[in-house]
């Protein structure tokens, strides 16, 4: 019986395929040759047959032999229709022309949320993002993502995202398929994504296809521009904080193109006059030089060997540096100087080869490298005193990944696509090494290195996805991923089933459901919610077990009058082996010597526990018309529990916000003026605040002299007597709710066609009604008529109303 089944399994597809041929190729933008992802191909004669382009712009559709009438389309582009007689497998590369003038403005997303099989996926058109008001005029995709349902921003103004109760490290953030470990510039206030260099991006927060893995909560897949193969384009942007320039063009027309983009801030240049004034009013010892800058470089080369083979080489390098020098050395033997520096950054490189084996089999192979590092340095040189001394300290941490991937896309029939792939990653972690040296009159007193040792690990994975259309109404994506992590003689193996299902109830209404299980082998140790570079990436080990999650989600998707999309999605996510610092622990500035032998070992400073997150998300979106945008609301709960925290009691996650509301609108008044508006409202963050004070005994103080209590023989014993100062107490972690957060941002963009190109002047107001949203709170004494009047809790906001202006110019 088994043999019969096997025979049927092998033969049936062959019979199905009899008398059918495959049409395949790429769909590109005709003006730039950029691949169009998610473009549609369908048979005009029979709407049953349809396909979309994959992440590389490739499509494949198999149709019965004979006369066919095909249409290739993409929103915002003029569709192409061709009728021909299909007698063999055929390659057709299509170039779609962008629509220059539309009766109605359409800034549509690429995918139809009702019909698309993928659930939990949201895309925000870059065109919309460019029109929205932003802090200091710096367009940032991460901040736009924060306004989507189910996704929460962290501290105001920062780029961190928290998806469905997950931590920032649970987001798989990809640039051209390569993970980026730190997306923060300027302590998180800006992300590393330079919008000039981005082609498009997707956000997936549930129903993860098997091809994604390694992180529990989301996938943010950012694709850089491939470079225009037709003509040269240059644009630049001047903002209050930074400026950027992007240029692209053909190296060999229709064969090879490049794109290069750079961005740099100029806070360090702005600081120069302040330093000069400071030097005038202070003595020589206080001479100060300080500054900060961020810089990004994105580059990509795209080479088309043939219709079957394409090669991409992409590169990203980003860096932040904060520095200060106090004092001055006049010669090598006179003067006094202190130098501080903190620098961090990412390097990402990807070499990708796309190859079409057959019209139905597409392959993507890549070699990638990703590095995140930060260094903190301090040197002090005292050449004034009799004993000339030099004191130096340095702290370094980094993560390096070298990876190889192969992905295959096999379109077996129009209703059945298989995807499979393998991947291997070599991780090298440096969880924090300190070096310190001290010398007097050129004699080294000590020169030592201490801290955690380097850790190497290998991560392997293989996956298979089956995208199946079951009749006209139903479709499913069923697959699985098998991941393994090899570290210090410990091998973790993780089978991860993934299932998603879609049912079309009517043409404009669908229901989707999904189940996904994820495992994560790398962890971010973070003790602050701001994206400080002091956060450290560490691997899972035999002591720190891999994080894992199981997520269930269900959604209803409506298309209303072809103008509005309404998505209502519910989810439940259970997470295990979450990582937190133990009470009082920190990898940075931690002088804890409670356990002397183990004080430097990072694994001893963290604890693991579980978390739950559940909620309902609403998204109403309008992509058509002069007024478009979205309204997003999330009602959610997110709690955590750790054996070593609060005696194992459940406590709310910091970003457990009951209500999250975001209204995002753009309005195109005419071709010259458009407006943007954001309004966000959310429940305040849960923070740990000592609300209670009590007198505890100073028993643990070295010099306590407790009172004697006398026993029957007259001999004394010490007991508690002396009180220590008042001791703060909080009932549980994250016991206090910050006040609700709300903010309105406004922008107006003036567009003008100039002789040499198009310029856009953007004026913005961040926090337009100047509502002070607390960033931190603190208990302080207050005084009335110069008399002590008591204690109060004060909240400090970081951003009052902030105007911005930016200038963007794109050459013709």
């Amino acid at each position: 019986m088994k043999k019969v089944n096997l025979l049927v399994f092998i033969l049936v597809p062959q019979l199905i395929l009899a008398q059918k041929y495959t049409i395949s190729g790429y769909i590109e933008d005709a003006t730039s040759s950029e691949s169009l992802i998610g473009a549609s191909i369908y048979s005009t004669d029979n709407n049953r047959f349809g396909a979309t382009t994959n992440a590389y712009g490739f499509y494949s559709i198999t149709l019965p032999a004979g006369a066919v009438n095909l249409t290739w389309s993409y929103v915002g582009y003029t569709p192409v229709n061709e009728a021909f007689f299909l007698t063999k497998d055929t390659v057709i590369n299509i170039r779609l022309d962008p629509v220059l003038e539309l009766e109605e403005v359409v800034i549509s997303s690429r995918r139809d949320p009702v019909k698309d099989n993928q659930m939990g996926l949201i895309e925000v058109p870059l065109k919309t993002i460019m029109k929205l008001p932003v802090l200091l005029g710096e367009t940032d995709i991460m901040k736009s993502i924060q306004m989507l349902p189910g996704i929460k921003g962290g501290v105001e103004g920062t780029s961190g995202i928290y998806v469905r109760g997950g931590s920032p490290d649970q987001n798989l953030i990809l640039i051209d398929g390569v993970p980026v470990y730190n997306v923060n510039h300027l302590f998180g206030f800006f992300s590393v994504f330079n919008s000039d260099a981005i082609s498009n991006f997707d956000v997936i927060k549930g129903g993860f296809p098997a091809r994604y893995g390694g992180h529990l909560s989301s996938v943010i897949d950012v694709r850089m521009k491939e470079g225009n193969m037709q003509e040269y384009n240059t644009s630049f942007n001047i903002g209050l904080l930074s400026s950027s320039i992007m240029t692209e063009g053909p190296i060999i027309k229709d064969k090879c193109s490049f794109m290069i983009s750079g961005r740099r801030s100029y806070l360090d240049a702005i600081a120069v006059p302040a330093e000069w004034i400071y030097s005038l009013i202070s003595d020589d010892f206080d001479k100060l030089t300080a500054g900060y800058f961020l810089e990004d470089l994105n580059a990509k080369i795209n080479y088309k060997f043939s219709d079957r083979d394409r090669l991409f080489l992409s590169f990203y390098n980003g860096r932040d540096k904060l520095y200060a020098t106090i004092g001055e050395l006049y010669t090598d033997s006179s003067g006094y100087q202190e130098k501080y520096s903190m620098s961090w950054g990412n390097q990402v490189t990807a070499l990708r080869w796309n190859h079409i084996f057959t019209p139905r089999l597409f392959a993507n192979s890549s070699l990638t490298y990703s590095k995140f590092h930060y260094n903190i340095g301090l040197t002090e040189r005292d050449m004034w005193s009799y004993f000339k001394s030099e004191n130096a300290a340095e702290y370094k941490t980094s993560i390096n990944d070298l990876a190889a991937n192969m992905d295959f896309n096999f379109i077996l029939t129009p209703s059945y696509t298989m995807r499979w792939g393998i991947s291997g990653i070599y991780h090298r972690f440096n969880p924090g090494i300190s070096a310190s040296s001290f010398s007097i009159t050129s004699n080294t007193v000590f020169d030592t290195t201490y801290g955690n040792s380097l850790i190497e690990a290998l991560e392997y994975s293989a996956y298979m996805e089956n995208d199946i259309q079951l009749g006209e109404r139903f479709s499913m994506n069923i697959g699985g991923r098998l991941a393994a992590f090899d570290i210090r003689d410990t091998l973790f193996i993780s089978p991860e089933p993934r299932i998603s299902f879609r049912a079309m109830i009517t043409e404009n209404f669908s229901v989707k459901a999904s189940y996904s299980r994820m495992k994560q082998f790398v962890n971010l140790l973070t003790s602050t919610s701001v994206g400080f570079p002091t956060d450290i990436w560490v691997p899972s080990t035999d002591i720190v077990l891999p994080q894992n999650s199981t997520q269930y989600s269900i959604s209803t998707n409506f298309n209303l009058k072809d103008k509005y999309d309404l998505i209502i999605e519910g989810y439940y996510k259970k997470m295990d082996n979450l990582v937190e610092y133990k009470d009082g622990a920190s990898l940075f500035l931690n002088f804890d010597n409670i356990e002397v032998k183990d004080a430097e070992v990072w694994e001893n400073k963290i604890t693991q526990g579980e978390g739950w997150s559940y909620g309902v998300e609403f998204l109403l979106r309008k992509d058509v018309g002069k007024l478009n945008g979205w309204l997003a609301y999330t009602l959610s709960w997110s709690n955590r529990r750790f054996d070593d925290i609060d005696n194992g009691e459940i406590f709310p996650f910091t970003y457990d916000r009951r209500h999250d509301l975001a209204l995002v609108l753009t309005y195109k008044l005419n071709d010259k003026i458009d407006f943007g508006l954001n309004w966000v409202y959310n429940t305040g963050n849960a923070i740990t605040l000592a609300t209670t004070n009590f007198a505890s005994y100073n028993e643990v103080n070295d010099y306590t002299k407790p009172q004697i209590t006398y026993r029957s023989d007259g001999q004394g014993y010490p007991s508690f007597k002396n009180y220590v100062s008042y001791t703060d107490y909080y009932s549980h972690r994250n016991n206090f709710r910050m006040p609700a957060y709300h903010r309105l941002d406004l922008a107006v963009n003036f567009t003008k066609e100039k002789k040499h190109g198009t310029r856009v002047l953007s004026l913005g107001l961040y926090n337009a009604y100047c509502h002070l949203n607390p960033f931190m709170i603190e208990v302080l004494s207050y005084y009335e008529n110069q008399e002590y009047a008591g204690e109060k809790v004060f909240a400090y906001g970081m951003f009052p109303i902030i105007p911005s202006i930016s200038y963007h110019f794109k050459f013709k």
Partner: protein
Amino acid sequence: MRSRTILIFLLLACLIVSCEKELDIKNLNYKPMIVLNGLIYQDSIIVINVASTKSIIEPDTSITFLENAVVKLYRGDSFMENLVYDSLGFFHSTHRAEDHSEYRIVASAEGMEDAIASFSINSPADFGLRNFNSSIHDTILHIDIPEEADTNLTHISLGFELHFRDDPDKENFYDYSSFDSCYSYGHMSSYYGDSLIEEGYRLHRNSRVGLFFTNQEDAEIFGTNYSMNNGYCQNCFITDEFFSGKELSFELQANFYTTTPDTVDILLYSYPSDYNKYHQSGYRYRNVQDNPFSQPVNIYSNVENGLGLVCGVSCGKQKIAISDEGASLINE
């Protein structure tokens, strides 16, 4: 030109508004609780301090002792007595604590939930001292003790080994102290610290043991104010995690000035795990005060519906006689 002027004005107006503000938060959901504290020794009366918590925004900085609280003592399920208020929040029993008895304190005060603390007292650790060596130096220290006659102190070096066997059936925590019966000045170096760390013992802290004894409080010696009682000096807190059921011995060296003849008490305390948690959380609490990167810490409490620490402690004692001839163990 006019529109440009308006634009500049608007931008300037925005910048002026852009200053830091403060928000006054009054509702902290504060709920007052009873605070109980007491270290109860074997064969000692039970002394419990009873106080109230206060909100962090309460302006009064003094401790609110709950002198009207009702503090009940139970042994097992049997009510023993109401503790009697003494002063400064201290309530005491007439009953003396006995080894291996389970005690319970229930404190009630108006407007607060009843606070409950349970404790028992183990037998004292059986420890010994051996391998004495001592020497009397020629150095004499002349000190001027307020309101007393001037005193000459003799410089003494004292060494010995402290040894004891851990109870394998319990999770034990040890600490030792020393007391001098008269004025002295100096310190006791505990050389065991580094060696134990190398051997993998988990120590609370590798600290020196101060020997600084006097019968006077707040006396001024050598121009420095010291708050002194007959003295307990915090030193090394040891868990038995790595020597459970085994014998532990370590060498102690003291170098100090005292009057002779003199006696020094060496005390070895045995604590329950509650005390260890309190001890360590307290250390962590202080350690993170100035570190913005650290997670906050609560000091451990074993009081149900309240705060504080009430636990039983047992103590073993050995006495050393100091004379002009040297040091020797006194067998009592």
